[in-house]
């Protein structure tokens, strides 16, 4: 904690404050402005004048007020007690702030991220005399029923365990181990402090090869994301970015979820806080909150802390990754973060390049997305950070700088289409503009696990959709009835795929999450339908007979009528479908003729 004032405020312009007498300070150092101790970070130094971005409202700050140094960069506290928390952009727990301040946020409150008094049940896994190195597990804390918090050996602490705490309850600041390192004996507590702006590298980076299963059919089957990969969700307002991000946070098969509400609506965070303790993880049946950490810097909270919220979030993600967990991080929205960067740049009178953004915007975006990755964290443990960033392009125009630069650094692109949203086709993921570069990397996983030609199935669905989109251009000119029946069948099947497979109702208790088995079976069923219908149409069956089949409505409603654990009903549906096709077949295929 800073004791003596070193600098003096000389200039205030919104969140940007300049202070003189700061010759000893260093770039990115955390400082405190005025007796109220408003946290800020040094973002420029010129002779003895430091430019500081202040994380809180600066109203009333005057020239002559003191500035205190902390001696270290902005960092976040890590340890047991993070899970289930709601933190602001600089890591302060908002529930504690509410208790202390009431419902409105007031500035100048300093609260540590981790509760200093709470005792955690620690179980050691090493013994005195063991040789340990960074990354090894010293002991574990069952933080929530869903998550075992692993206390690992910090960087630079290789050596012999001199002392390890016996099983018992400890606070995060009590020593739980002593390690004899080359530099002497070192006490280890359960709490760490990591600077947020620095990448914490993976021990060994590996190629992502396992999909992040999201339970969202259009994503898992058509545009998959790998664990350790990065994806972007661009979409204009009302296209459903936030609902999709909430779906991902709810149903993704990650061990830890970090959800960053960056410059978004306050009620959205409230919604997560209200829902997640009630929603159950489909794999364990436990409340989702037991694996979730929220970072909330809503649109009306200080813009500078919005800028840092992204880094606070990804640093926490790396911390859990190093325990050997798969972490999925959702940032909603990276555009608001980019705007915060722009606002600070503007106040520093930096040269704007595109749309007022500074020249280093792409570099900042790259730094962030590169913190995603999959790899080895210790001899026998693997971990990953998957990053999913929402992008809010002004006017829904994807050619704007944030969308364009983001595209360069992510390999899965889920483009949301406003026209789909208007027709309440949700998730409004465009099958034309979206893509995934992980398809080949994860195809073997699907084949090994489910014995299905996932890639082939996916390709068939995509080509039908692509053909439909071509045909629609003709339909706009001559109408659908002028097309030959085989082409009209493409339109018909494509609309079945859209309504019966791609659409997914986030509010429907059955439909909102599909197991991979259901995803595969449903699409297989639709492809089987297409195959049989095509054969009949080729034999001259009029298209209206296909359009009038009884099974159509059942196929379209299967996604919300058939539960994940009652997939045998899909088998029955298939039999029913085959029976109906068989009957139609008798009309057009004469005995002895070879079936297509």
């Amino acid at each position, binding site marked *: 904690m800073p004791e003596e004032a070193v600098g003096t405020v000389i200039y205030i312009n919104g969140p940007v404050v300049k202070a003189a007498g700061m010759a000893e300070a260093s770039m990115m150092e955390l400082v405190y402005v005025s007796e109220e101790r408003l946290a800020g970070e040094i973002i420029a130094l010129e002779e003895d004048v430091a430019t500081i971005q202040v994380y809180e409202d600066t*109203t009333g*700050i005057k020239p002559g007020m003191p500035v205190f140094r902390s001696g270290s960069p902005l960092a976040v506290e890590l340890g047991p007690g993070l899970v289930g928390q709601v933190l602001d952009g600089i890591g302060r727990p908002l529930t504690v702030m509410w208790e202390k301040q009431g419902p409105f946020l007031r500035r100048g409150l300093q609260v540590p991220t981790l509760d200093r008094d709470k005792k955690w049940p620690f179980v050691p896994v090493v013994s005195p005399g063991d040789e340990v190195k960074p990354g090894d597990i010293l002991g574990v804390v069952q933080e929530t029923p869903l998550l075992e918090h692993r206390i690992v050996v910090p960087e630079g602490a290789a050596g012999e365990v001199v002392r390890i705490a016996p099983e018992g309850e400890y606070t995060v600041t009590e020593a739980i181990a002593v390690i004899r390192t080359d530099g002497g004996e070192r006490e280890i507590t359960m709490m760490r402090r990591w600077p947020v702006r620095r990448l914490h590298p993976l021990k060994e980076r590996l190629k992502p090869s396992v999909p992040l299963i999201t339970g969202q059919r259009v994503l898992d089957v058509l545009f998959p994301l790998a664990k350790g990969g990065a994806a972007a969700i661009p979409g204009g307002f009302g296209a459903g970015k936030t609902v999709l991000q909430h779906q991902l946070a709810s149903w993704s098969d990650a061990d830890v979820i970090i959800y960053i509400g960056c410059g978004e609506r306050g009620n959205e965070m409230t919604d997560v806080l209200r829902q997640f303790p009630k929603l159950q993880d489909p794999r364990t049946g436990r409340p989702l909150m037991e694996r979730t950490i929220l970072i909330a810097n809503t649109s009306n909270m200080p813009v500078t802390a919005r800028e840092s919220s992204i880094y606070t979030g990804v640093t926490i993600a790396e911390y859990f990754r190093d325990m050997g967990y798969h972490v999925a991080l959702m940032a909603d929205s990276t555009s608001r973060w980019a705007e915060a960067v722009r606002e600070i740049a503007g106040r520093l009178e930096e040269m704007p390049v595109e749309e007022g953004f500074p020249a280093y915007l792409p570099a900042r975006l790259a730094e962030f997305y590169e913190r995603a990755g999959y790899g080895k964290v210790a001899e026998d443990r693997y971990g990953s950070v998957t990053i999913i960033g929402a992008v809010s392009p002004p006017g829904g125009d994807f050619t704007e700088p944030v969308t364009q630069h983001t595209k360069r650094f992510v390999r899965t692109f889920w483009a949301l289409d406003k026209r789909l949203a208007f027709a309440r086709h949700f998730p409004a993921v465009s099958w034309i503009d979206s893509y995934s570069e992980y398809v080949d990397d994860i195809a073997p996983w699907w084949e090994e696990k489910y014995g299905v030609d996932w890639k082939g199935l996916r390709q068939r669905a995509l080509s039908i959709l692509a053909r439909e989109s071509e045909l629609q251009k003709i339909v706009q000119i001559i109408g659908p009835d002028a097309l030959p029946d085989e082409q009209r069948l493409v339109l018909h099947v494509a609309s079945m795929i859209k309504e019966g497979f791609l659409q997914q109702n986030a509010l429907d208790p059955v439909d909102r999450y599909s197991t991979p088995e259901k995803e595969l079976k449903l699409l297989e069923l639709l492809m089987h339908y297409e195959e049989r219908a095509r054969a009949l149409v080729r034999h001259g069956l009029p298209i209206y007979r296909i359009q009038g089949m009884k099974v159509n409505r059942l196929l379209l409603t299967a996604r919300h009528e058939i539960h994940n654990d009652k997939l045998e009903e899909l088998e029955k549906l298939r039999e029913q479908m085959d029976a109906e096709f068989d009957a139609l077949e008798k009309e057009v295929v004469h005995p002895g003729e070879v079936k297509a």
Partner: protein
Amino acid sequence: MVTAGRRVYLGVEEISGPLVFVRGVKDVGYGEIAEVVTSSGEVRRGRVLIVDGDRAVIQVFEGTGNISTKRARVRFTGEPMTVKVSEEMLGRVFDGTGRPIDGGPPPMGGEERDINGSPINPTSRLYPENFIQTGISAIDGMNTLIRGQKLPIFSTSGLPHNRLAAQIVRQATIPGEEEAFVIVFAAMGVKHDEAAFFQESFRESGALENVVMFLNLADDPSIERTITPRVALTVAEYLAFDCDKHVLVILTDMTNYCEALREVATARGDVPTRKGYPGYLYSDLASIYERAGRIQGSKGSITQIPILTMPNNDITHPVPDLTGYITEGQIVLDPRLHQQGIYPPIAVLPSLSRLMKDGIGEGYTREDHPNLANQLYASYARVQQIRNIAAIIGEEELSSVDKKYLRFGEFFEQEFLNQGDANRTIEETLDLGWKALGLLPVEELPRLKREQIEKYYHPWG
């Protein structure tokens, strides 16, 4: 320099647009209020935007006309801009900065509050989930308004957005609750007759006693508009969270507000982004729109209905665009429907209520509501596609199903949307929705559950 009452007057160094530059200041804080006294003794208020050593930049709310560098004097109050809030403000009319203009004295008592308020801690919010019945089918059925929501009306010149807002104010009720809404009305740069229209409408419905009006009219100083919504919302927060009232806030016209903000930004040389608006327009609008909702420990609520006119009816213009990113949906008005004489001319497809999902359905409105709304959306979207095709190949060439869609579209617009001043219950709205769907064959209604079809679906026509 610091003297009792801080009655220190300083000369003006430079004037540029709405900004006044002062040198020689001491002990002046960022954001505090300064008073500029003109040579004729008139006092104008302004806010400190930048403090640079002994120099300060002040944004003057009431305009810088008639301020001279030689004779004007500036003094600093040491306080941020405040407004005195009390329940006595109900039934009164104030100017855009909170001074009474209805001939009455300033309200007695009350306490001074910073007009900038403080952000609500997201963990202390209560999620809004009470359905507000506005009596308007396009809203109640398709874009339901929820108590504590911020739901703007996106309009354009010549459309009846004022009539719609007045109708919502008149008809808004929570079914099963007696208590009426209290109205806080803030006008930014609106014409005299528009303000008079609202006043008349409040009077007719007998609501005037429950209304606080803040009027910055078209010929009032434009910079003053940058504080009007903040003054209004400070009063609204007091009424909602201190007095436990349900407050409905009408803010009109937010486009005028944004233009005033742009004027200040340009004068101080901020980096312009789209259409010359400053990069912080999003954050600035959020500091207004986020002052809505419910908080734990208070029975009151703030529901916001901002109105904005889209220049050139362009929804991608920065003002509607950034608004839509912050608010919980939008009600979009459509000139095409208006020309056809349909009132209210609500374009349901681009309209949206994000909080609808939590305030409708079983236990709120009726169990079929979510799926019914979903199906109406999907079917009406299909109507638009078929109309496009019909425009090219002619209606006769359409398939019989497509023709049914056109009839459905016609009924939906003429009967469901078009309702004039009628005040419909939610049941009437939902039943009318089912009647419209009765024009379509059941195969075309996959978004409805089997049991809902059995209960409500009656094919006709």
